[in-house]
């Protein structure tokens, strides 16, 4: 490095660490930035600080115990992740789940999606300087969490799915309370929507920032709301339906812009879609009496074989590749997590952006660090 009069004017690259403990990284994601002044010239996401070896632990846990690990790698999509493991085991063992359980699972999965989206609808504006949406979002989250807790006993880690259905039926009168909670959330969403949809400051920070085109998104394997904001028309609930999604008309929220603003708007609109879907599921549930699980032997051993199940998790497509050798534990259970694929696009998105935009882009990729590192 040149020392002397010219030192201040020499263009020098600086390597800047964002994370693993930076407050804007929500979790322990580390970004290695090479900056030229305020401009990011290179970005390398460093993942793995939160690796807990979930996949290896699956190999020494039976399917009941796996649920507790499955709902923890992505703590914001706990129900949906439990569901994926249960679906994989059920497909391998050829178990037909009772109809009531199917509708109940769908209703809860959609409510879980609303819960997940509300978290990002609150935290993303917070990251770029607006504090009120956080309170609005958490007020609505609380209503749904109360309903989820009443059914499952847990506020975050539900432990409600089991191979063959759900652990137990919902308490009496739950459907009514769930429907009321959905109405309240829908009503509460109006003020969140009004505050952010046409907000000048919010638009100024997010419009045209971090544009991800459809081809790049597809190349990185980006899925879920982030991909749909780039115009990738892909939703497993419609394209490869599981549970009873074929019986419902699932509207897919799409945007073409692919910027941070579009990603946020997809999330905002998906909440409404999920509320509507959850309502339809509750309606079907009310007309479907019967058991919510099938009786299985005390020690459940799926037959020898392998299967791949993927579901539309709140953050994107989650895949579960299950290989069984007929033991009570899986021989291998490989996860394909949405967040891991989504953050891969960060390196391209960040190149050339400014430091404040870097925060806006990072938040708008909607990931959970536990889901990246597993």
């Amino acid at each position, binding site marked *: 490095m040149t020392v002397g009069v010219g030192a201040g004017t020499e263009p020098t690259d600086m390597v800047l660490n964002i994370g693993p403990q930076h407050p804007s990284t929500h979790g322990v994601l580390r970004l290695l930035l090479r900056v030229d002044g305020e401009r990011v010239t290179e970005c390398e996401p460093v993942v793995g600080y939160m690796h807990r070896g979930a996949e290896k632990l699956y190999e020494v846990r039976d399917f009941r115990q796996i649920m507790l690990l499955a709902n923890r790698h992505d703590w914001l999509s706990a129900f949906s992740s439990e569901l994926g493991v249960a679906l994989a085991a059920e497909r391998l063992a050829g178990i037909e789940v009772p109809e009531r359980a199917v509708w109940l699972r769908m209703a809860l999965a959609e409510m879980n999606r609303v819960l997940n989206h509300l978290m990002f609808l609150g935290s993303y504006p917070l990251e770029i300087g607006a504090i009120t949406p956080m309170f609005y979002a958490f007020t609505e989250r609380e209503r749904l969490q109360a309903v989820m807790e009443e059914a499952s006993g847990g506020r975050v880690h539900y432990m409600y799915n089991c191979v063959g259905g759900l652990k137990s039926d919902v308490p009496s009168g739950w459907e009514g309370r769930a429907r009321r909670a959905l109405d309240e959330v829908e009503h509460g969403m109006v003020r969140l929507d009004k505050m952010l949809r046409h907000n000048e400051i919010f638009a100024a920070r997010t419009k045209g920032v971090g544009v991800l085109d459809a081809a790049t998104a597809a190349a990185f394997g980006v899925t879920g709301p982030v991909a749909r904001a780039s115009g990738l028309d892909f939703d497993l609930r419609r394209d490869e339906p599981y549970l009873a999604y074929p019986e419902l008309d699932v509207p897919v929220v799409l*945007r073409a812009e692919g910027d941070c603003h579009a990603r946020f708007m997809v999330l905002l609109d998906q909440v409404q879609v999920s509320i509507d879907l959850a309502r339809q599921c509750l309606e079907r549930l009310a007309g479907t009496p019967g058991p919510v699980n099938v009786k299985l032997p005390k020690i459940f051993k799926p037959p020898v074989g392998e299967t791949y199940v993927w579901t539309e998790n709140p953050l994107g497509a989650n895949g579960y590749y299950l290989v069984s050798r007929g033991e009570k534990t899986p021989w291998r259970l490989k996860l394909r997590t949405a967040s891991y694929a989504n953050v891969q696009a960060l390196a391209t998105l960040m190149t050339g952006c400014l430091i404040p935009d870097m925060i806006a882009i990072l938040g708008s990729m909607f990931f959970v660090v536990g889901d990246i590192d597993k």
Partner: protein
Amino acid sequence: MRGAVCHDECMRLPGSGLVSGLVATARTAARRAVTSQYPEHEPDLPERSRGVIALHEPNCTSCMLCARECPDWCIYIDSHKETVEVEGAARPRQVNVLDRFDIDFSLCMYCGICVDVCPFDALFWAPDFAYAEGDIRDLLHDKGHLGEWMANVPDGAKPEGVE
């Protein structure tokens, strides 16, 4: 229902955001808070709420099922056999006597598998949550402490014959 249509064309006038912001502030200031005042008002928790595990000691046969099924092995059980003479019975009977039943709540992941697998209705969930400790070692609840939680187990969860 809102579909895939974009609503962004109708961006409002500059400055109107500030006015509507101040209106929102005035409106919110006049409204009651949605937060519940926790230490004064206990939250109303549902029956299934997984707060703390209670032990009904007389029902425990120290069969070790819960300790074996626990995914992170946070249940510790010791027991010994005792021979008891039962009046009217031809031979004395052997019973398991529980010496130690500890749950380490610093390890517990609140999955509820132990409660589910217990075949003798000895373990229950109580909705209590306020048992934080200053020292992590105090989170190891012994059978006496676990028994105290029985008082808070919802009646609906208790089987017949358990008070």
